[in-house]
């Protein structure tokens, strides 16, 4: 416990937690992370989080998928093996649209999910230590970084959050 460089502030509801986040940030304490059982709306803003760039990853993957799908079909039917089907031109763009669309969707979807897992470091691993055993149930935890020593941070937090109900500082 000695080398612990953070204090956890535990709540049982998201509204006091959101207020506390604002207070802690105002007092220039550093919040390492917040853990919640579900996506609390407004928490991203309260923490001053930058918007994730995953959509850009999706755009790149999707553009690649779409281009690849279309160009592959075009190459197959104009260069590699031109064959007349139903009297249509070799480069019959309208009938390439469905496959192009499907590949765009497929690449985007797989791309953003891969980006989510990689950026968040989520992977199937056997070892896992939660911050709090009820974090996926009904507890909301703010981890505050301790600057000099743990005790003083805890005292500052205690005085700061004295008005908030049901708060536990560990």
């Amino acid at each position, binding site marked *: 416990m000695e080398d612990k460089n953070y204090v956890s502030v535990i709540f*049982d*509801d*998201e*509204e006091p937690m959101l207020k506390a986040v604002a207070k802690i940030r105002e007092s220039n304490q550093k919040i390492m*992370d917040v*853990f*919640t*059982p*579900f*996506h*609390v*709306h407004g*928490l*991203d803003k309260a923490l001053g*989080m930058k*918007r*994730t760039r*995953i*959509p850009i990853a*999706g755009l790149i993957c999707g553009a690649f998928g779409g281009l690849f799908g279309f160009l*592959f*079909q075009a190459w*197959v*039917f104009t260069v590699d*093996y031109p064959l007349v*089907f139903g009297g*249509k031109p070799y480069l019959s763009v309208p*009938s*390439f649209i*469905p*496959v192009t*669309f*499907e*590949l765009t*969707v*497929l690449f985007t*979807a*797989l791309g*953003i*999910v891969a*980006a*989510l*897992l990689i*950026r*968040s*470091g*989520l*992977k*199937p*691993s*056997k*070892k*896992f230590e939660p*911050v709090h055993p*009820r*974090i*996926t*149930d*009904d507890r909301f935890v703010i981890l505050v970084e301790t600057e000099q020593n743990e005790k003083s941070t805890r005292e500052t937090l205690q005085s700061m959050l004295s008005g908030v*109900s049901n708060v536990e500082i560990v």
Partner: protein
Amino acid sequence: MLQSPIRIPLIKGNKTYRDVTDDILRPMANKPGKFWYLGIALSGSAMLLGAFMIFWTIWHGIGTWGLNRTIGWGWGITNFVWWIGIGHAGTFISAILLLFRQKWRTSINRSAEAMTIFAVICAMLFPIIHMGRPLLGFFIFPYPNFRGLWVNFNSPLVWDVFAISTYFTVSLVFWYVGLIPDIGTVRDRIKSKFKKTIYTVLSFGWKGSARHWHRHEVVTMILAALAAPLVLSVHSIVSMDFATSVIPGWHTTIFPPYFVAGAIFSGFAMVLTLMIITRKALHLEDYITVGHVESMNKVIIATGSIVGLAYITEMFISWYSGVEYEHFALVNRATGPYWWAYWIMMTANVISPQLLWFKKLRTSLTFTFCLSIVINIGMWFERFVIVVTSLHRDYLTSSWAMYKPTIVEVGLFLGTLGLFFTAFFLFIRVFPVIAIAEVKSVLKSSGEKNPKK
């Protein structure tokens, strides 16, 4: 948080966050009851029957089916379209209703998405078995081969391969991304050490960090935005398998929207069938309320009316186009040897959902349950009518024929029903049937009261 005094609560009985976790995980923690064993025994046997019929078909060939030279597509394709259609409701609930910010979807989206995946698996079986030589099934993918040929990208059947495999992959990924936080909840709750290890691996180390939630939310929204046009494209492409041919009764431009509406219609019927049983069996009445059932019934009225309108439009166009073959195909559907199939379809799909205009009926669970079965049957007959009656009397009078399924085809259909329900029975044992985290996120705004501390 603001609470609307007008709307009825989506989650009944003043729940705390902990109650939500407990209630939804309870069916997983308890030992399965008598009905579960009975159910899985029944559906498992049906699945085995289906497996045997698949073996029989592959061993002896497609000749074991009732198909002939005139009617090359029978129950196999009927079942394929039916199952794909059923899958569509899950994506509709999880993607389109998410984009429209419909909070009631949170109670049903998880199981509806699971249903989608199982239904698409059932659907995919049919084209593969129908090939007769499924071992050569990989021919449908464009891969460099010694013949130097590629698949025909102008063909809707090839589009289908791409559409359905993309649909399956994206649905699976979407479902699993949504499941990760809830698997985390299971992992932190479960007692058995062995199971805990498995759920730890499956949860991908989810720890509920705000940053992860932020990304998770963004990814979910994009996946929904992708899945929405995807689901519309899938059944449109399935309908083009028919619409791009020159068979009277198939060759119609109305098919794509008509098939999509029909798919969502039949899918919601299947969701209702499953949900009404599930809520009772797993005691989730507080989460899947009569309000949820009513909302789904409203979707059924809307899509059912679109389907009815499409049927009527088909009638009008077959007359207005002045094409005598089209005209004959329609008259033959309604009054020919398969008239009974047409009228079952009309009664079940056009007339019966209109009963839901009565509030008393659409809030009655018994009635909704019976109606959902009727619609499932009706939508199966719709596909049967489209496939078989359009084919059985073609341009050449000398080749007119009749079609009757053999025991093998019936067994195959029962087998997929068995597969579907077996998968669903297993699903309710291993994963939370309701999206726990999502229900918690709407609990404050849509619960009966602010949860007690």
